[in-house]
């Protein structure tokens, strides 16, 4: 008879953590292959197509980095929220609110101001918009004990509908010839691109800075420590006199604000106007949750995991075209990866041994 025995593991080395992630990804790959096989697609071909589509060509790499920018920004913000066990699944809505604020600022002041003033201003506006939409659930949770999973989700829908209302109504631009969407932002408000690509470098640099700064905030500052205590041991936090409302507001302002930054990149860097919600974010807010999780809630690692998942998004588009798979294929890949990542966590935190006894 085989007995499975599990014991807690206390000393988790970085190497073990890394190897567990790799093992989880490989196991997920096996399952994804089986799903492809059942769907009548050659899995080796499909998977190699995903990675050659995203990392195999110069064009693919450029697209991957473009898509990695919002994922890194949002994922970084989520690491902070998740560490405080604040389950912000509303990055999607926070991003859209950031886009609304940024677009308004760009359209209103863009003509009159030079680039070096208006660009920082729209980033600031985007941050404020995202932060505003982020602190609402924080207040609802801390003051009125309303579950943040529900409130952030509801706020996603509310913001998407609000944005749609704006672009088909009062904000509809003449330049769109009757189609929904605002006018283009003035040239001074548009972000520069790395030539020959869609990489808006200002946002890319900002994303890297945010990852580093947040890493310092989480591990080296009092606020970061308090955020972690709120998440890991709220009772101890209460005795230690941590102000939950203040900590919650700040961390959700940051988390939402970074999603707002991401939206500035999409609006001012790629589209140049505010269009339908689905065109601004194709689910970045949700994919970023996996990005943060794969990064083990370490802001620095979101850079790597953000690029990885951006690669899957770009590769996913490639196999949709070349293999005729539905758009939802990427969801299968992401969902399976996530399932195996959480399973991997179990084996990281527990030592599982099989005991054979002669009974």
């Amino acid at each position, binding site marked *: 008879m085989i007995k499975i025995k599990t014991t807690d593991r206390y000393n988790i080395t970085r190497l073990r953590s890394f190897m567990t992630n790799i093992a989880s990804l490989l196991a997920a790959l096996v399952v994804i292959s089986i799903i492809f096989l059942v769907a009548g697609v050659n899995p080796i071909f499909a998977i190699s197509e995903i990675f050659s589509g995203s990392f195999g060509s110069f064009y693919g790499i450029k697209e991957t980095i473009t898509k990695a920018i919002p994922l890194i920004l949002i994922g970084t913000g989520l690491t902070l929220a998740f560490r405080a066990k604040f389950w912000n699944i509303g990055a999607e809505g926070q991003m859209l609110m950031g886009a609304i604020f940024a677009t308004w600022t760009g359209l209103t002041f863009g003509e009159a101001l030079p680039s070096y003033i208006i660009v920082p201003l729209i980033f600031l506006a985007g941050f404020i918009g995202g932060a505003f939409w982020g602190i609402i659930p924080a207040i609802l949770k801390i003051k009125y004990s*309303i*579950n943040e*999973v529900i409130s952030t989700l*509801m706020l996603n*829908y509310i913001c998407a*509908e609000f944005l749609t209302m704006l672009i*088909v109504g009062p904000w509809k631009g003449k330049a769109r010839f009757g189609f929904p969407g605002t006018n283009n932002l003035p040239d001074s408000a548009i972000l520069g691109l790395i030539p020959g690509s869609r990489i808006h470098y200002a946002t890319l640099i900002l994303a890297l800075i945010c990852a580093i700064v947040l890493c310092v905030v989480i591990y080296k500052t009092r606020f970061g420590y308090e955020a972690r205590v709120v998440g890991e041991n709220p009772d101890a936090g209460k005795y230690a006199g941590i102000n939950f409302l203040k900590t919650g507001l700040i961390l959700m302002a940051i988390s939402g604000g970074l999603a707002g930054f991401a939206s500035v990149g999409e609006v001012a860097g790629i589209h140049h106007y505010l269009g339908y919600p689905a065109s601004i974010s194709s689910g970045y807010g949700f994919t970023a949750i996996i990005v943060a999780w794969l990064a083990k809630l370490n802001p620095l690692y979101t850079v790597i995991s953000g690029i990885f998942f951006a690669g899957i998004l770009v590769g996913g588009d490639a196999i949709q075209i070349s293999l005729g798979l*539905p758009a939802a294929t990427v969801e*299968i890949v992401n*969902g399976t990866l996530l399932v195996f990542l959480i399973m991997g966590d179990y084996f990281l935190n527990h030592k599982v041994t099989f005991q054979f006894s002669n009974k």
Partner: protein
Amino acid sequence: MEDIIVLTLHRAMVAGTPLLLATTGEVICERSGILNLGIEGVMAIGAVVAFIVTMTTGQPWLGVLAAIAAGMAISIIHAFASVTLQANQVVSGLALTMLGLGLSGMLGKPYVGKPLAIKMEDLSIPWLSDIPWLGKILFIQSPFFYLAIVLAFVSWFFLERTRLGIQIRSTGENPKAAETQGVNVFRLRYLSVIIGGGFSALAGAHLSISYSKSWIEGMTAGRGWIAIALTIFALWNPGRAIWAAFLFGGFFVVQYLLQPLGISPSFLAMLPYVATLFILLLISLKDPRKLNAPAMLAEPYKRGER
């Protein structure tokens, strides 16, 4: 005027049906202490499986059974992750939603846009359907409607009055104490998650073989997430879920009713979500204790700890 009111209320019942089914399932699941954010995905699986089986066999009820089986099967993933592996339930639920939406998209690709020849026909209850107003609103409905109400009552009775139901609630409130009383917390949590999955899939089946009679990717359109909000709104009580679900069904219908009056459809589409937040806020302001979720909701239970 009578026609408009009757039609509106009738449609509110139709729109509320999948919400009620999914909410009832989530109530059972959350009462055992497991938060399942995977409803949206399981619903999509239910919708696509019901559609495919109904189309190929010509038997809508067979489609329903297949959908329930599929929904239960895929929910095991969440049960395994959250109960056995004590994983984070928010993340695991999201993974289930992604998987469900993805798999349903892939399974349903060949069926997109194909109409269903044989669908689940509406059932008119003899005698009762002749009552003026009420008859047309309540007693000429799809079988799913009656099923949803009966199942909600049964679930209420099950949770409040039966031994197994009380044990399930105890695993959500105090698993440690439940275990010392000889309750198998793991088994009951598995059971609750799987039952919840069956309910969600049933809701999906309603969408594809009764409500719209066709399959398109993403046809669940956020209903699973609303069910999660409704679970709180109903304060974890399947009886209250009946009112809540049909009220929300009404919100959906009113959108179409007010649109010709020049009110922006986006504004109206926003209403159900704003209302959810607003009502949760009201409950919290009036009596915050009422918002008390099952005490150990979303907390992994570790056997033999402390």
